[in-house]
């Protein structure tokens, strides 16, 4: 019986491109989560990720506050 895309991604056949991606360090459980979403939900996730990345970049520019923080 043919396996579903999810089954293939979560249990890759040895020597497959999916196994290569897993060994490269791609978290394929996240790929599976994305596959379950609608295109709009994927884009909403992307936009959220962009916002988070922008916040991280702001924090990086400000630098650490020190062990005790602002106060």
């Amino acid at each position, binding site marked *: 019986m*043919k*396996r579903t*895309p*999810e089954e*293939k*991604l979560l249990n*890759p*056949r040895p020597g*497959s*491109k*999916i196994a*290569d*991606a*897993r060994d*490269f360090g*791609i*978290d*394929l459980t*996240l*790929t599976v*989560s*994305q*596959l379950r*979403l609608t*295109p*709009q939900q*994927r*884009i909403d*996730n*992307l*936009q959220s*990720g*962009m*916002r988070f*990345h*922008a916040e991280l970049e702001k924090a990086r520019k400000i630098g650490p506050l020190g062990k005790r923080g602002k106060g």
Partner: protein
Amino acid sequence: MIDLEKAITSLAGHDVDYVVVGGVAISLHSSGYITQDLDFCYSRSKENIRRLYHALSPFSPMPRNWPQDLPFIFDESTLRNGTNFTFDTSIGAIDLLGEVKGIGDYVDALANSVVYTIFGCEVRAFDLDALIVSKTAANRPKDHLVLPELLALKEALDPNEE
């Protein structure tokens, strides 16, 4: 960071002929990759360049890293006189590509695209094969980071693979 809703709805509202080709297309295909900009291949027809100008001009595009003391005018002539542009706009970074390495121009991009509906608009984006070909041809370090997941998705979604 690009405001995708504003960009996509403006392009759709002006009937611009374009195909999303970069990180946003990769996300549409279920990758967790996060980009910061919108890259698209556009038709270089005179009429489309007019529509593209009207779609983007509200966002005051400026070439990325353009010297502050140098004037820049964004108009139809600017778009006609170039092919590929990297713009910073009031809604984020937008890259316009007249041609995509490994694929070709807009007609080729269109032939290698699929349609998604986002923000209530029909949006064409590179299919998985075109993304793999273009990322392989671009051959930059950041392309090598996304290729393994794209190849995995292609294999997972291929009904002929076990």
